[in-house]
């Protein structure tokens, strides 16, 4: 029986759920951290989403299962967030999510490699861009605060940050 033949809310094969979990759980959790600004809530919602997938994902096509999973998780996150409104100043919470879970040896090595890549990528940014990244990410300033402290217009600050992020992203993805 193919996925198209199954009822829409039929359970999904546990092996398929496990494979999807191995492939998408980390990304899903990051997405939920971005929505919820809370790593623990994000982990809980991600778990709930996979439970939904196992219970009712039988009718989904394999090509759309990831999107289905993320959509279900997003709606679940919105429900949770309404119940638990969180404060702002969220980048630190997002950053702390990376240390909430004890990494495996492979994950630690991968992380060290990522950190080194980030360090190199940061070093290759222009000084203005580096300053902006520092203000926004490491000092948790808002764009307006960072612009004021750097003595530049807000639009300039935004442009520098956007350019820095784009370059960092390309560096980290190996496209640059």
């Amino acid at each position, binding site marked *: 029986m193919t996925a198209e033949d199954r009822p829409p809310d039929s359970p999904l094969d546990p092996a398929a759920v496990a494979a999807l979990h191995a492939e998408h759980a980390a990304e899903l959790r990051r997405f939920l951290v971005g929505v919820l600004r809370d790593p623990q809530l994000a982990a809980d919602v991600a778990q709930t989403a996979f439970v939904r997938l196992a219970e009712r994902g039988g009718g989904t096509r394999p090509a759309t299962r990831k999107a289905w999973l993320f959509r279900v998780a997003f709606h679940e996150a919105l429900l949770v967030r309404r119940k638990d409104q969180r404060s702002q100043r969220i980048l630190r919470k997002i950053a702390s999510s990376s240390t909430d879970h004890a990494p495996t040896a492979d994950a630690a090595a991968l992380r060290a490699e990522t950190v080194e890549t980030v360090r190199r990528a940061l070093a290759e940014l222009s000084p203005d861009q580096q300053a902006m990244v*520092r203000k926004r990410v490491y000092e948790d300033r808002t764009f307006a605060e960072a612009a004021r402290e750097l003595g530049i217009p807000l639009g300039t600050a935004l442009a520098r940050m956007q350019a820095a992020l784009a370059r960092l992203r390309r560096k980290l993805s190996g496209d640059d």
Partner: protein
Amino acid sequence: MSEHSSASPDSLDWLAFRYIAGEMTVAESTVFEERLGSDQAAREAVAAAVELVGALAACDPADLVKVEIGTSGDDRVDLAGPSSTVRPSWRVMASWAVGGAIACLALAAVVDHWSGQRLRDLAKRSLARTAGMIERAPSHAVAGANGGPLDGPLDGPLDAGGDVASMAVRDQLARLWSEERAESAGELAADHEVESGDGIGADLASVDAPAWMIAAVAAKSGLLSDEAADAASEPAAAADAMPAPKTDAGAIP
């Protein structure tokens, strides 16, 4: 996927970053979240933005390369943050302190060794010259006679000034001593770079001939009477004239 997927990646990534950073207005955030409900690319962009911020946060800014910013080129900003520009990390301060202590110890050891060696050299030279001077004075007085010891009697007070030759020798030695001290002081002053007015060289040069030396020479003044007389009339040649061996045993009292 939805109609939003055609947006440029940078724009979507930028929106995602602004979203997770809380840098959207309520209206913008509402619109973006509507998009998240239908656009898988937007969801993945949010996940990627979180990953990027997490990677940046994991990179200790204190370890980053220090960079300079500023349109004028004079304004320097440390990527490690203002705290590191104003207050260096304890590791940096500790390394400077240890390095400074080691440098001080090394410098002290070098100076101690060098100055000690220098002073010893000066003392040796001074003692050698003084010893030679004292030794030569009696030797040239007795060498040509019987080679006896310095057995001349001390007649009268050392500083009575009754004997012109004795006075001349004493003055001679006093001058030589002063010159010796002045030379040593000058060398020391030069070596220690104290010519700038700390007075050390002047103090050293102004020390008078010690009484023991005057007494020792004056005790033999009678042996040096001829040359002492010459020295009294030709002070500049006295130093050279003194060591000259005297073979006239008759001068011995």
